[in-house]
């Protein structure tokens, strides 16, 4: 339903653009129309990397400029038609994006944005250095069409409209694809996305390359329709990025309609102000433009699109809260299977703090292993080593008899180890179903199949009724269930659950414990971290106790809670001295 609406919207933009182009007669109006289409295209291009993937680029005019320069230089030097030249420009822009992205995506957040500022500056200096301060488009009077030299101003806006439509289609395809969901997941929580099998680096590179091409094509058309003489300042300058950011911020980021809305409003305002008020009151156009921009940003800080759209109500919901699906029959005690995960001598030191010291244990197929220890014992660090967020200083992790140490999180996930987080890391702007979908894409399924898989995972945890709400409307219990579903959607053989019971009510603990047993019954091996022992005593087959980064004890739950070393870790040496271990239990270090 929403899918068709998306395509209908693109068709509507095309029809409206066409009608405007045919209806307008004045040369000047066609110029404005061309600019609206071009800056909307630039906005859409920027939106792919910065809107969907959240990697804010302040240097996107680098690709705009490359498109303009390459096309015009090919025509001027090699007499190549710009129709082919602009494809060459787009190709070089994509190549440049890959070259730029390789080092730059190693930077996170604002540092990425700052680094991107440098690239257009470099290109400006390079053009100056090569002597291309001014490159005029060669006049070819005998082949005007072949060299994109039209008398009829309508031709340029139709050309720009075609590019806009193509970029809208590209954005739409990205939005509904596996890549699109991965990008949105990266934007909202990169670590969680990685843990769900998303290769963040490759996804960002793909988005960057895809966003460079339309920018380059827009630059080429801009050169022919507006500039006629290409200068470093004209295409690599600040104006180009300011226009791009303005149309996106006014219209809304992270949606294909934002840049279109922003361009349709802001470009005509700025052009008409320049032409009318600028003559009589020099400078007034800047004041009015700035005031308009401020007014819109104050009223709609996230952009007009998000302000006007009725968001799916995350809070109001009709479906009842979680209902526990009938419990499976009581499980027979699990016979310990073969060792699947083998952790040997793991050590990890943070500046001066030994978080893990020579920790070894193994996990057998089909068991529920609990890892307990007071706060600061190194439990979460251990999980971060197991799923690839951290590289251990020493030691080895083996999974199914193959080395796993040093593999990045998305590879660990794809090999069958899923995880959840101590504080649920959900993707707040994705619906519950879409959150789970990110996990379901781990093995590269097609969108339709992944969607079915995600629905099934939600049904397994009893959240089918909440599929289309936003996570903000869920309770803590429901969020944890959603995260479990997202983890199960990656089809793991082993799951690492980081404090799944923390902060739940007694009923919640019961329900979550039932879900964990059911997960195990479905053949998934479970490793749970908890700092409270009570809950795990009934749930785990075996406990490993960590304290100050060391393995303190290991054994059956009843045995471990009577272990003097464990009592000392939790209550202190002096408590032990006063009370003794209770019923003495054999020590198994």
């Amino acid at each position, binding site marked *: 339903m929403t899918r068709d609406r998306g395509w209908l919207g693109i068709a509507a933009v095309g029809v409206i653009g066409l009608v405007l182009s045919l209806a307008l007669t004045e040369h000047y109006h066609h110029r404005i129309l061309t600019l609206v289409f071009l800056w909307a295209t630039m906005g859409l291009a920027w939106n792919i990397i910065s809107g969907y993937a959240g990697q804010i680029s302040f240097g996107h005019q680098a690709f705009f400029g490359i498109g303009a320069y390459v096309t015009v230089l090919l025509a001027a030097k090699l007499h190549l038609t710009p129709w082919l030249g602009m494809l060459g420009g787009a190709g070089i822009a994509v190549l440049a994006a890959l070259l730029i992205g390789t080092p730059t995506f190693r930077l996170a957040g604002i540092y990425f944005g700052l680094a991107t500022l440098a690239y257009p500056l470099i290109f400006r200096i390079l053009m100056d250095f090569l002597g291309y301060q001014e490159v005029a488009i060669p006049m070819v009077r005998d082949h005007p069409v072949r060299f994109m030299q039209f008398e009829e101003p309508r031709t340029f806006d139709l050309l720009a409209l075609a590019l806009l439509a193509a970029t809208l289609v590209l954005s739409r395809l990205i939005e509904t694809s596996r890549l699109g969901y991965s990008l949105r997941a990266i934007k909202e929580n990169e670590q969680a996305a990685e843990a769900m099998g998303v290769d963040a680096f490759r996804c960002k590179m793909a988005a960057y390359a895809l966003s460079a091409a339309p920018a380059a094509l827009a630059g080429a058309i801009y050169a022919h329709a507006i500039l006629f003489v290409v200068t470093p300042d004209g295409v690599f300058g600040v104006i180009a990025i300011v226009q791009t950011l303005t149309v996106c911020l006014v219209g809304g980021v992270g949606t294909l309609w934002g840049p279109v809305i922003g361009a349709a409003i802001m470009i005509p305002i700025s052009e008409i102000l320049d032409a009318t008020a600028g003559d009589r009151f020099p400078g007034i156009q800047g004041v009015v433009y700035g005031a308009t921009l401020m007014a819109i940003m104050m009223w709609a800080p996230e952009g007009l699109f998000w302000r006007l759209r009725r968001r799916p109500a995350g809070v109001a919901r009709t479906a009842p809260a979680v209902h526990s699906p009938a419990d499976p029959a009581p499980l027979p005690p699990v016979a310990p299977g073969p060792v699947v995960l083998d952790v040997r001598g793991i050590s990890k030191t943070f500046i001066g703090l030994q978080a893990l010291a020579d920790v070894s244990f193994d996990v057998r197929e089909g068991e529920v292993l609990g890892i307990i220890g*007071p706060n600061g014992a190194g439990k979460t660090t251990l999980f971060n080593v197991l799923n690839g967020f951290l590289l251990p200083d020493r030691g080895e992790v083996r999974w199914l008899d193959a080395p796993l140490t040093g593999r990045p999180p998305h590879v660990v996930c794809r090999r069958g180890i899923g995880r959840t987080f101590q504080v649920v890391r959900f993707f707040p702007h994705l619906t519950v179903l879409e959150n789970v979908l990110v996990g379901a894409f781990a093995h590269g399924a097609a969108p339709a199949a992944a969607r079915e898989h995600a629905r099934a995972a939600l049904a397994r945890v009893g959240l089918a009724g909440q599929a289309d709400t936003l996570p903000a409307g869920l309770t803590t219990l429901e969020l944890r269930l959603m995260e479990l579903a997202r983890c199960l959607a990656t089809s793991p053989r082993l799951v690492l659950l980081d404090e799944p019971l*923390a902060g739940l009510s007694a009923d919640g603990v019961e329900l979550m414990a039932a879900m964990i047993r059911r997960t195990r019954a479905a053949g998934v091996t479970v490793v749970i971290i908890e700092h409270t022992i009570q809950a795990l005593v009934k749930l785990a087959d075996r406990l490993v106790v960590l304290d100050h980064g060391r393995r303190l004890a290991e054994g059956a739950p009843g045995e471990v809670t009577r272990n003097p070393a464990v009592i000392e870790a*939790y209550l202190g040496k002096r408590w032990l001295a006063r009370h003794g271990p209770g019923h003495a239990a054999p020590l198994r270090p």
Partner: protein
Amino acid sequence: MLRLSGLSVSYGGLRALEDVSLEVNEGEFVAIVGPNGAGKTTLLKAISGSVRVGGGRLEYRGRDLIPFPSHQRAALGIAHVPEGRRIFPSLTVLENLELGSYRRAARGRRAETLDSVMALFPVLRERRGQAAGSLSGGEQQMLALGRGLMATPELLLLDEPSQGLAPRVVEQIFETIDRIRRASNLTILLVEQRVVEALELCDRGYVLETGRVALAGTQSALLADPRVQRAYLGA
């Protein structure tokens, strides 16, 4: 002096405290112990005003505290030394201490209070010009304590002063708390994971378990009660 009745606090859907009732009398030293995640820190935050109370009553000297924002509660004489110390690392030791005497009642007596705090923690006098971030963990904890005392509080809330410190340093910190207590008739509410150390210092104690008061009693009663262990280990 301080009375909580039926207090509950939740974050989102997460119940951190449920129906907690306790009281602290003038001049008393009360300890709250319990395993991690029991709600100890939340309890102190509710008293000092950095989390919103969901239900129940909170009275200080017979006055309802709930409508007061946290800075006004500080002005009433409640000083909170938070978990993890929260000193200002780029300011000097002296500047950190001076910021502690921000509340009006403390400003007039600043020089005097500073002298007594420095006497209590000679190491802070030695390092007064040093950036607080360059202190060791134990020294930072002393600075946090000193900063709390600079407000000349009537009620001192201490959140896990032993956290992340080596055993020897922990002993030192607890000794200092004991000295502070003997030197003034300050009312202290201490939250700790280290059961024996905390209970040995206090007059009375409460054991918190998953957001509820599981046990309450005098120092000696709690120290002898095997049920305390159950709150930690469940068996």
